[in-house]
């Protein structure tokens, strides 16, 4: 069955693979993918990866930065004061400076608001450094004996390092160093000083550097699991998961490492979150009667009070100089302090467990060294022998699997025996009054005594080696099962993570103390241990803290500190959801593509974009109207524009005129008339019409030219007319040539620019002029066709010998194209140019041909202007050639039948062709005039009729 996702908007169930809700279209899948690794669950016990986030300090809230700065300043001031105080050459353990939670106190002093960020329960548990530890009067020797080497405590410690609730427990070092042994927070403070085992720590094993962070981390992450050291000892510890407030404290601790001296004067105000029963205990402790002080305290605590009282008695230093409990000190601890001062006045309000603790503590006052931390972590801090081991510890040692209540009872009994000690030495953390530089190593028995610490305390305490096995052993403790007799409020800590697989039972110490580093060894000067303590803190804070501890100057932000894109900061990793074992249904994207974007602004994000192009949500696209929003005026303008465009493309009919066509009947009629009339006239050979009388100038000049040609002179004749015009041309030319031949017997040299000119020449000579019997090559010469048009004419005009070297041989065969050199023949013999010709006669039916010859012969280098130039043309070309005659470019013009008729009249009527045609020609001309005139008049009459009809119609 597919996974179902509930829509966060409408609450409807949708398939997990849908990106949008099918009911409300709300987005079901996050728009952006998770950060790299953010979706990886954090399994229990897994520590976040340490990241460098020092560059994020700039984004800290102002209050937090102020707190950090004030803490550093305070630590610096205290360091200066400690250096100026000669009476305190050796300050109390510098381990407070490294106390992880010491920053809480400074925050509380800096701003009250910041206390809200520090859970009180955590403050109470972790044991914020009481200010009493800043006491200048505290004997450094004592501290040295308890906590470690002298050099370890040389650094001053600000008063704010001491938790308020521990101030009452921790006496000023100068006045009552032994009192501090009764302070429950001593072992907490000593946890920062890894080199000093807590007094009750019977295990010499070195606590893993991250154990404290583990249990803090577990609490901070609501895992609630007080993992024993064995479960986390071998895991790398980082400070990436440390919250900001812890990082602030870390900075303060770093500053305190340089100012270790404890001061009992600056006791912070009592926390308001102190449980009532503790406040009641405080009230009882204030009272001289010890019995009334711990009436509400648990039995075990009372027993501890008793033991502390006994111990105080045996330790003069600790019992003598206890300052009055500060108002800031938790009440219940003040009560414990009071009990230490007055062992007999065991508070009846104290819980039973506390009362039970009083007794053995008091009884073990002399042996309190067994609960005191070893300053060096070695044998120096544990000088006691087996005989110093409290009975209750012995009982525990002998019976490791005994219940907590048993050992609490034992504690209470021992405390009753030694009322001098108000608090057990393991709580007071007060060094034994051994002024020695070196403290004998703790006896294994003392380590065994430490095993008697209640499991709840072990759970609340950092997973240090005081309850655990030596580091690296990771052995399962014997009798590790938590006691069922533990109070509920203590079990609450343990029940947070009841399934801790490797929880080590309290006091399960199997190795001697000297075989492993002491518990809570905090080498303030050891960077490794120092860093391990702050692995729970954010990276940036840890880095800054390190730098602040060295130079009191924030480390510069470098690129190395920058977080890689797409990497989660460690503290964010810590906030990842814990993999509870049941994988949550992972809602995949629609495309199922979970690829991580590697480029662009979405780099590092996963599943943001669909992998398939065009892949889009299944939601139906919105429908948009495509109707154009236009006003009526705009629509009107658009329509007008459309009409204009259509008008431009529409074809415009061209106004046509009715073509005047001859009707077939009319055409046939006219054809019939012409054929009938002409045929009749011609067939009848009538001579109705007289020949033209008079000679026009052009014809007269032509006649004059003909008559002026020398005898037998060469005459150049150009035959440029179409065969169709042969009738007309011959009718016009024959009379002239007949007269010329008759009169002058010229040598006729024929040439033509038409292809048919040569054969027309032959026809002309052999036809109309056949009577003259002109022989080719003798009387006449046919040069044939002159190619090239105007260029040929021009060339011929320039050099006729080269241009037309050959002449057609006269033959009866029309297809005889045999060529003979023309210029060697008699007609052309001795001639080399046109100027040598007697006359130049152009016979043409085309005005253009006449113009070409006229132009080119005129423009030639050897113009023929002196040569008579006569044009015999068709009637149709005469109008165009007439201007040349008018301009005297030609000497005569004979055109058409009319010109031939004139010549015939001057040639004695020879050959008579014009005469034969003249009547027909005249009738034809009259007919044409009649038809044109008649047609015009008819059209006029029809027009008038139509107009009259139209007028009548109107």
């Amino acid at each position, binding site marked *: 069955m597919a996974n179902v996702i509930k829509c966060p908007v409408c609450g409807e169930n949708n398939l997990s693979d849908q990106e949008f809700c099918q009911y409300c279209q709300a987005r079901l899948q996050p728009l952006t993918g998770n950060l790299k690794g953010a979706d990886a669950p954090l399994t229990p016990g897994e520590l976040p990866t340490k990241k460098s986030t020092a560059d994020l300090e700039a984004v800290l809230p102002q209050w937090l930065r102020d707190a950090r700065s004030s803490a550093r300043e305070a630590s610096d001031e205290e360091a200066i004061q400690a250096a100026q105080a000669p009476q305190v050459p050796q300050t109390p353990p510098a381990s407070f400076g490294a106390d992880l939670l010491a920053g809480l106190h400074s925050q509380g002093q800096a701003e009250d608001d910041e206390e809200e960020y520090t859970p009180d329960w955590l403050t109470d548990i972790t044991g914020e450094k009481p200010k009493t530890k800043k006491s200048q009067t505290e004997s450094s020797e004592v501290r040295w004996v308890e906590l470690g080497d002298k050099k370890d405590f040389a650094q001053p410690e600000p008063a704010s390092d001491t938790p308020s609730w521990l101030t009452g427990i921790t006496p000023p070092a100068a006045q009552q160093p032994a009192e501090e042994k009764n302070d429950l927070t001593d072992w907490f403070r000593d946890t920062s000083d890894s080199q000093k085992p807590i007094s009750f720590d019977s295990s010499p094993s070195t606590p893993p550097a991250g154990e404290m962070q583990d249990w803090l981390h577990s609490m901070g992450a609501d895992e609630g699991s007080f993992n024993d050291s064995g479960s986390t000892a071998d895991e790398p510890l980082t400070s990436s998961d440390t919250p900001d407030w812890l990082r602030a404290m870390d900075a303060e601790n770093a500053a305190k490492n340089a100012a270790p001296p404890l001061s009992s004067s600056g006791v912070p105000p009592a926390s308001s979150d102190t449980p009532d029963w503790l406040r009641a205990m405080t009230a009882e402790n204030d009272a001289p009667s010890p019995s009334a002080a711990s009436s509400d305290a648990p039995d075990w605590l009372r027993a501890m009070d008793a033991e502390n009282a006994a111990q105080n008695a045996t330790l003069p230093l600790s019992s003598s100089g206890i300052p009055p409990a500060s108002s800031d000190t938790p009440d219940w601890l003040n009560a414990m302090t009071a009990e230490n001062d007055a062992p007999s006045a065991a508070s009846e309000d104290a819980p039973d467990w506390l009362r039970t603790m009083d007794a053995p503590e008091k009884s073990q006052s002399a042996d309190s060294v067994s609960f005191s931390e070893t300053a060096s972590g070695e044998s120096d801090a544990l000088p006691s022998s087996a005989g110093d081991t409290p009975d209750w510890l012995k009982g525990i040692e002998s019976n490791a699997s005994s219940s907590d209540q048993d050992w609490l009872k034992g504690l209470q009994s021992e405390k009753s025996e030694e009322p001098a000690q108000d608090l057990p030495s393991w709580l007071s953390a007060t060094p034994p009054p051994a002024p020695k530089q070196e403290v004998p190593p703790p006896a294994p028995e003392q380590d065994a005594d430490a095993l008697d610490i209640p499991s709840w305390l072990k759970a609340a305490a950092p997973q240090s080696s005081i309850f655990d096995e030596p580091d690296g052993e990771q052995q399962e403790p014997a009798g590790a099962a938590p006691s069922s007799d533990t109070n509920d409020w203590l079990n609450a800590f343990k029940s947070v993570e009841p399934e801790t697989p490797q929880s080590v039972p309290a006091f399960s110490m199997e190795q001697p103390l000297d075989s492993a580093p002491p518990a809570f060894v905090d080498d303030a000067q050891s960077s490794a241990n120092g860093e391990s303590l702050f692995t729970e803190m954010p990276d940036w804070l840890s880095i800054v803290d390190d730098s602040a501890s060295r130079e009191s100057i924030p480390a510069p932000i470098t690129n190395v500190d920058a977080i890689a894109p797409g990497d989660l900061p460690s503290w964010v990793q810590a906030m990842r959801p814990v993999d509870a074992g049941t994988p949550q249904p992972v809602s995949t994207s629609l495309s199922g593509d979970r690829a991580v974007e590697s480029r662009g602004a979405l780099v590092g994000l996963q599943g943001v974009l669909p992998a398939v192009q065009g892949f889009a949500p299944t939601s139906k696209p919105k429908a948009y109207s495509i109707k154009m929003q236009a006003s009526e005026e705009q629509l009107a303008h658009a329509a007008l524009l459309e009409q204009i465009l259509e008008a431009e493309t529409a074809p415009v009919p061209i106004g046509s005129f009715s073509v005047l066509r001859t009707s*077939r009947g009319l*055409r046939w009629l006219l054809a019939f008339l*012409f*054929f009938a009339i*002409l*045929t009749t006239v*011609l*067939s009848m050979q009538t001579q109705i019409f007289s020949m033209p009388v008079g000679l026009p*100038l052009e014809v007269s000049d032509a006649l004059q030219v003909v008559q002026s040609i020398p005898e037998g002179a060469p005459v150049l004749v150009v035959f440029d007319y179409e065969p*169709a*015009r042969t*009738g*007309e041309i*011959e*009718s016009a030319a024959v009379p002239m040539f007949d007269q010329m031949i008759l009169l002058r017997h010229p040598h006729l040299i024929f040439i033509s620019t038409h*292809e*048919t000119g*040569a*054969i027309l020449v032959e026809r002309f000579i052999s036809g109309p002029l056949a009577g003259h019997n002109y022989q080719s090559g003798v009387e006449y010469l046919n040069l*044939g*066709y002159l*190619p090239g*048009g*105007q*260029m040929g004419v*021009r060339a011929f005009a320039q050099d006729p010998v080269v241009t037309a070297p*050959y002449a057609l041989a006269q033959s009866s065969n029309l297809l005889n*194209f045999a*060529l003979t050199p023309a210029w060697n023949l008699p007609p052309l013999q001795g001639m080399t140019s046109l100027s040598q010709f007697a006359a130049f006669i152009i016979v043409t*039916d085309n005005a253009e041909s006449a*113009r*070409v010859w*006229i*132009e*080119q*012969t*005129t*423009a030639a280098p050897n113009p023929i202007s002196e040569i008579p130039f006569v044009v015999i043309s*068709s*009637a*149709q*070309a*005469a*109008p*165009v050639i007439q*201007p*040349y005659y*008018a*301009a*005297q*470019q030609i000497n005569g013009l004979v055109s*058409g*039948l*009319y010109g031939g008729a004139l010549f015939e009249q001057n040639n004695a009527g020879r050959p008579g062709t014009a005469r034969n*045609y003249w009547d*027909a*020609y005249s009738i*034809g*001309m009259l007919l*044409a005039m009649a038809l044109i005139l008649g047609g015009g008049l008819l059209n006029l009459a029809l027009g008038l009729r139509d107009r009259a009809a139209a007028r009548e119609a109107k």
Partner: protein
Amino acid sequence: MVISPDQINLLTGVIGFLFTLLIFSYVLGDNPLFRVAVYIFIGVSSGYIAAVAWWQVIMPRLVYPLMSAIVSGSMIEMGLMAVPLLGALLILMNASPRLMGMGRVAMAFLVGVGAAVTIAGALIGTLIPQIMGTINAFDLNAATTRGIGFVEAVSNGVIILVGTVLTLAYFHFGARPKADGSMHRLGLIEVLAWGGRVFIGIALGAVFAGVYAAALTALIERISSLINFITSLLGNFL
């Protein structure tokens, strides 16, 4: 068999008669007889033109000189003959659309030379002489020399002058826009153009008369030939 000239004349007369009738059949409209006659004319003319071009142009103006040059071994003559040969070959390229570009060289040569010859001939042989002829129309001495009387000479000169000016004015198409947007020539030009149109009409009438006279003469000659053929036939049989 030897064909006598009379037989040849008869044969040619029959062919001429028939083809004349075929052409005249066009009076009845476009008909196959007319087309047959036209096609035969075109074919015969083309064949004859090709024969003329070959025998009267190519052979005497290209082949003979080239062969003569080859025989004589004159490189100059061969070179000179190679130019027209190459030009002819290039012009033949116009027959192929793909090779038409190569023929453009020879055509460019022809066009260039033809244009030069035409312009020079028109300028020297037509324009200047015609202008001078128009001017000299009032040359009374010349007219007297030619036997033209004064009145006639002046009258002719005036007609020629007026006719020339008015005709040229008719072909002056320059105009100016009016206020109403219409385009009109200058008033004087309009008047002269109107007179020129009269002279042009007269000239076109003269041309038409000449065309008609030429056509009529041709028709008369054809009818006369038919009559003569028929008469000759009838005379031989009668």
